[in-house]
């Protein structure tokens, strides 16, 4: 059964996320961070944060297709767009952004790719929605909303304009 009443609208979740990051930046926890979004939904969220936080450096985009751990079972994704990280990441603070944190495997792949660009000083993770079901010891530093979902439920984020999110049953999708 599809449920939508438990999910915060995207705009509210982004506002909460921005407020948390802003607060931490004021504490000096992050120095001149680069914002890097994970293709595709994470890039949409990262773009919104990039504008809201007034970052001067260009937005980075990671496509983790070549770093996924399920190539042997799923093969290559039918659409591959290049990663775009035009700024040197060596010694930099990075805010890695995704739309949904679920198993943690996507974030692991993204971190692996980031380290192939250089050695960041710190990577912090910002996600729009953090749900249960982690398969790796990875946790978001900031989340627009945290949810516990049923085993058949998934969060679908559509975008980029407008960006919307809905809960769907995996039996239906």
């Amino acid at each position, binding site marked *: 059964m599809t449920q939508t009443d438990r999910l915060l609208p995207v705009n509210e979740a982004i506002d909460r996320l921005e407020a948390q990051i802003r607060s931490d930046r004021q504490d000096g926890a992050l120095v001149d961070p680069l914002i890097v979004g994970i293709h595709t939904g994470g890039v949409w969220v990262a773009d919104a944060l990039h504008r809201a936080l007034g970052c001067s450096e260009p937005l980075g985009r990671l*496509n983790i297709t*070549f*770093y996924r751990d399920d190539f042997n079972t*799923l093969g290559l994704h039918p659409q591959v767009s290049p*990663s775009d990280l035009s700024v040197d990441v060596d010694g930099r603070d990075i805010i890695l952004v995704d739309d949904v944190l679920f198993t943690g495997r996507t974030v692991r792949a993204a971190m692996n790719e980031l380290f192939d660009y250089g050695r960041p000083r710190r990577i912090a993770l910002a996600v729009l929605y953090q749900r249960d079901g982690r398969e790796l010891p990875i946790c978001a530093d900031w989340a627009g909303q945290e949810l516990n979902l049923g085993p058949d439920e998934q969060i679908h984020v559509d975008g980029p304009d407008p960006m919307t999110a809905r809960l769907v049953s995996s039996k239906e999708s």
Partner: protein
Amino acid sequence: MAVKFVRPKIPKFAPDPWAIQFDEQGHLRHLLTIEGLGPQWITRILDTAEGFVSVTDREIKKVPLLRGRTVVNLFFESSTRTRTTFELAAKRLSADVLNLNLATSATKKGESLLDTLRNIEAMQADMFVVRHEQSGAAHFIARHVAPHVSVLNAGDGWHSHPTQALLDAFTIRRHKGDFTPLRVAIVGDIRHSRVARSQMHVLNSLNVGELRVIAPRTLIPTDVEKLGVRVFHDMREGLKDVDVIIMLRLQRERMEAGLLPSEEEFYRLYGLTEEKLAWAKPDAMVMHPGPANRGVEIESSVADGPQSVILEQVSNGIGVRMAVMSLCMSANRGETT
């Protein structure tokens, strides 16, 4: 423990000779020729290559996609550039690479080609990259490998060199975008060139505006027009309004005596000099699959000049071959022994 392979049943006379390139689910399993790929697969390869070319621009030029897989280069014919780029492509995908020089290998000791293949398969190879002087060699090998093994044709006789044609198309697309309005001229030894045949198939599949071949009569195969090209024997006429010029190497090793009066004569009439380049469009790209014979096919100042993308072709070759390897290995997912 002995390794047992269950071999697919191959019909004696396949109705579509290119169907072997795909598995039962329609995934690309082997790349033997451009024929039968169609524009969708060609475009998918080129799009995937874009991602890999960006990897080669990074400090760490490696992704973990094919970690644990083994790629075997089976080169029955000498090659430096192609073998090196295939090797680099596989290594940048984190695969293990085995280079076999078959000119000095077991096949010369009387061991049959199939026995050699069986032995390499027993070493858990996942992919064979094959170059052979005989047309159809890669096809033959693809028909006899174990179900989990992919075969890539790195050039067979006069027949086909699909990855070279794909990287050429990739290079053109990066500079010119849409193929539809383009005039492309392929110049030189069309008759003996597997590259030219593959280029004709790939460019026509991508709906290039006009494809021309320019060569002396002795270096043009009969009925070449059936491959969708216009034939020119005069450089000035053939290069008029051309956007892309692809020069070919004179295949001296495949030539019978008497096809060319002399290399000097060929250069005078068909060698791409600055003077002849001016007959094409001002922004025409100059390409050459290499190795280029300077002063025979192309003037040094043109090969090294601002309109030349010859070295870029070499760089792009790595990304395109990474794409092809990944896509073919995708077809064999979960079936490694």
